[in-house]
């Protein structure tokens, strides 16, 4: 018989779970906006990190607004990125080498509907290693009902230093109110 189904729910009484996935810190942008979002003093005792965010570009940004990502306050040309993206017309790719930032996935900005935010999930595997350069992978984008972009980003931070801080800045202006950035740690 073909029909529909309502999924069951886990009832009370399920044994507590000690998760290896933990919340480290969350930044929710207030009414004044924020020109920079930073996570500092990141504990080194996780194996991997995940950053989950919703955000918009600030005043003066383009509709298809990028974000800048740096680690450990390093602003030298030790970053690179590759992107595979689609803006509704064709699949495209770009590459950035020897940059001072990683250009992260695009989000809504500019004159797009002010209630529309982009979303990104970014993973940093083995972030605390002191022998490996750091690679990030991210899925994210925005849709504006007739505009938008979905992209997969691979980024490189060519330093073997453990990551202890993460900084994001918008293309222009400040991240507006209701943008939220949540950092999680994953234990092995």
């Amino acid at each position: 018989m073909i029909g529909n189904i309502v999924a069951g729910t886990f009832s009370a009484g399920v044994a507590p779970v000690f998760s290896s996935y933990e919340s480290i810190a969350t930044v929710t942008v207030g009414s004044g906006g924020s020109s920079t979002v930073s996570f500092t003093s990141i504990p080194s005792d996780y194996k991997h990190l995940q950053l989950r965010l919703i955000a918009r570009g600030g005043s003066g940004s383009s509709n298809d607004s990028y974000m800048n990502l740096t680690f450990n306050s390093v602003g030298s040309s030790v970053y690179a990125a590759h992107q595979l993206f689609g803006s509704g017309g064709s699949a495209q790719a770009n590459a950035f080498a020897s940059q001072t930032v990683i250009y992260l996935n695009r989000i809504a900005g500019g004159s797009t509907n002010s209630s529309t935010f982009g979303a990104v999930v970014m993973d940093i595997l083995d972030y605390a290693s002191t022998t490996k350069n750091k690679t990030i992978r991210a899925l994210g984008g925005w849709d504006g009902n007739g505009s938008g972009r979905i992209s997969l980003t691979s980024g490189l931070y060519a330093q073997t230093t453990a990551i202890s801080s993460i900084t994001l800045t918008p293309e222009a202006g400040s991240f507006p109110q209701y943008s939220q950035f949540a950092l999680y740690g994953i234990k092995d």
Partner: protein
Amino acid sequence: MSATYEPIATTTLGSDQTSVTFSSLNTTNFTDLVLVAKASITGGGAGSLLFRFNGDTASNYSYTRIYGDGSSAASDRASNQTAGGIGIIGNQAVSSAGTFIASIQNYLNSTTNKTVISRGSDSSGGYVSAFVSLWRQTSTISSLELRFGSTGGFESARSGSTFTLYGIKAE
């Protein structure tokens, strides 16, 4: 002690189903929802894994996607749809079903439209895909309904398909 990343509900279909619904989501206190699915559909070809929030069947959804079909990569979009998209899903036997993961962030906020990002890996069905979808409503999300195929002709998810919803809580 509550975990940061918890299962909310799961179902494995015992027969072909035209929809799967997760309800009462506004009674939870997570920050994000993550849907994980391993599924295939009935019908004559590949379609889309689709979603609706709060029983909204109006044209309040849209998506932009990128996908590869084994011979080329492409991107397109759909506006003013009656459902959002998660991934391109094949009609093969469920034993070779594709896997899909969707992230619904800040689902309980009442100030922003809702953006969903997702990936589909359906090699047996012939596609890899990534979607970003928009639900043009600022309401908190209380239910998530999955539909299959296309808004022009829904199909069913095959018996044996599995759908699990997780919650992630930011501190």
